[in-house]
């Protein structure tokens, strides 16, 4: 059971990491439009490069 003394602090670190990532995702608008991105993958054709790359 002693391994828990190591694993629980590690899990705490993971939780903080998850919180940071989630925070970034909400802040950068990943959840703003839940509708269109799933259509985009069907609409964009692979044989022609998209007109311009996104910044991110």
């Amino acid at each position: 059971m002693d391994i828990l003394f190591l694993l629980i602090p590690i899990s705490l670190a993971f939780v903080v990491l998850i919180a940071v990532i989630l925070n970034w995702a909400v802040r950068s608008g990943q959840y703003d439009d839940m509708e269109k991105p799933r259509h985009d993958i069907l609409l964009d054709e692979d044989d022609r490069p998209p007109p311009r790359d996104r910044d991110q």
Partner: protein
Amino acid sequence: MQGNENQDPVCFHCGQLLPAGNRLDVEIDGASKPMCCHGCKAAAETIVACGLDRFYRMRAGGTPRPDAPPGRDAARYVAFDDPILQRRFVSARPDGRVEAALLLDGVVCAACCWLIEHRIAGLAGMDTIAVNYATLTARVRWDPARLKFSAILAAIAQLGYHAAPYDATVADRQLIRERTAQLRRIAMAGLFGMQIMMLSLGLYLGADGGVDPGLADLFRWAALLLVLPILSYSAQPFFRGTLRDLRVQRLGMDVPVALGIAIAFAGSVHALLTGRGDVYFDSIAMFVFILLCGRYVEFTVRRQSAAQWDRLQRIQPATATRIRMNAGDAMDEEVVPVSALQVGDQVRIRPGEVVPVDGEITTGTSSVNEALLTGESLPVTRGPGAAVLGGSINVESPLCVQVSRISDQSRLAQISRLARDVETTKPALDTLASRVASRFIVRLLMIAAGVALFWWFRDPARWVPITVSVLVITCPCALALAAPAALTAATGNLLRQGLLVRRAHAVETLARVTLFVFDKTGTLTNGELRLSHVDAAAGTDGDAALNLAAALEAGSAHPVGHALRKAARGPLPHAVQVRNFTGAGVAGSVAGREYFLGTAAFVQRMTGVAPSAGGVVDNGNADPATRIVLGSGAGTLATFHLCDTLRNGAVELIRNLARQGLGVRLLSGDGHAAVAAVAAGLEIGHAEPDLLPEQKVARLQQWRADSEVICMVGDGVNDAPVLAAAHVSVAMGGGADLARANADIILLENWLDALRAGIHVARRTLDIMRQNVTWAIAYNIIAVPLAAAGQVTPWMAALGMSLSSLLVVLNAARLART
């Protein structure tokens, strides 16, 4: 058309019927496709030229019809390049690029977004464009040195969509920030709460000493670390709410929540440091999470109504065409922002455009659709000297208008203000739950204080856990959830039935309504004309006469023409030399014979013969707009009677309401005859015609004083103050935006019978809310003495509270099922 196509030929781009005569074609995918107008042709050609013709294969549903060939669009948007106007919606970025948000109109599917993104991204000088399909907005970033803002708007218009710069107010931005913050708070509370629960489970299972004391301490310290973000970030609104409440010296739902969290936390930390007693970090995480979820639901409803207001602002155009007389009598046109217009300016309004401000016509005669402002569904004819209202639509021919009131003082702005005033003076309807809850909170706090004092003297070591037990077991969760859970479930149920609930109180109030008040046009009736019957003169075939009339009206956008065309059967003859007499009728030749179609007076003037078709004498009391006469040189051939039709479900709804013993009344701004006819058809005893909006409000206030609970069902902007004056208001989804924004409930399908189902659901909701509140109080009456006596350990308290909340939520969920 080809033999294999039995359907009417439609435009390949917009899907509307092709007009007879001149054909326009565009080659798409190697085949020639028909186009209905130059606007569609230009849009289709642009799409093909940009290599975006895949759009036609990907799209779902109709594409909007562009209103004009592209040449004119560029000029229309030039005013948006004005730097002063741009300051309102364009923001500069440090890298020299500028950014703006656009509101899009006409976007119906993801393919539309794709088309706009790819077309705009192809413009030289464009950095990025991201279309948001959920909010129908686009965020664009471009290089102002290489690309003009007007060019972006014009390019979107060229595709047949309409883009308006999104002039986000401070309030809007705050709303969006607030929503993001709430989501983050819920996510954080959930994330950290789950970890705490996991650790707590270990502690609960090992509570009998089966856990190594060192490990148990590790669990407790880890839980303390995990609860800190919940306290400092997620629970912030409760602490801030409590501070606000205390500053104004009143007790809200936040007070016991904050107090419970604070004491539970302080007690837990104390227990952790001294090594005696239990920790309650899991309880804290759980009720913070649950309460935040409840708040978010409430916030979402508020946000929806705000978004509606935003779209409403677009009734008024942002720009206007100002004309100036130059030296030498030449006319000079320039497109200017509407806010720059001064009283006395001359403005040109083309057919199909929205009148930008209130004014007086100087030249031109046209029919103007004021449906949004007056609720009058038929366009009215206005000539030189007549007043036109900002927000109405010019239907037929160009007008020159002298500005008489600037946009801030226009009638549209006044109506909006009136609606908002009524809205703010509306008496606050305390819900049953919050009335009970606020009394409950006072008692809860008094009991908690008493228990704390008692145990402080009796057994100082136990006062913290017992007080926390009392606060946790009586946590107003169940009580706080009682109403919102039922309302949320009911709102979902109502949405499936075609009713969109905009304000939380609406469901509860709808269940208690004793008096239903209806508007007529557009509410009980469809607000569109239909041919009721034809009086043909002796020796004339009614159907043939109808076909003649429809042929004469073939090119007309007027509702009368629409009704006649819809009623006509069989192939129409071809009318030539059609001339329009605005506000009177049309004249044209069919098969070499001259015909006149219009008001009785018009036909009489043109033919010189008094109309007396089929023995029908003009008795003078019918509305001339709904009696249309067809005449020729030989006299009157036929009289067409047009009427507004009752909406589907109106009869069933009114009959059902009457059977339940509820009052039904009709208030209308229309004339006596029309109102009496509708009232008779629906068996409504109390109907009042010829009312101004102010008089309707006065009636409602009078009935309110008679302690009736009023539900107002209406449609149109002139109804907005009336809707706001009722206890609960219902608007037609197809109605005007303003009425929508001000109504508590919206009928999405314009199907009146849905309201009947809505009343039933509302009553059940009220029942379930009462059950929930009763349960929550009964639970507390049993649990509080037990906790106060020290018979309840905190884990039992937490379990009891959870089960109590769960029961309330499950009871409410019954509403969502049916």
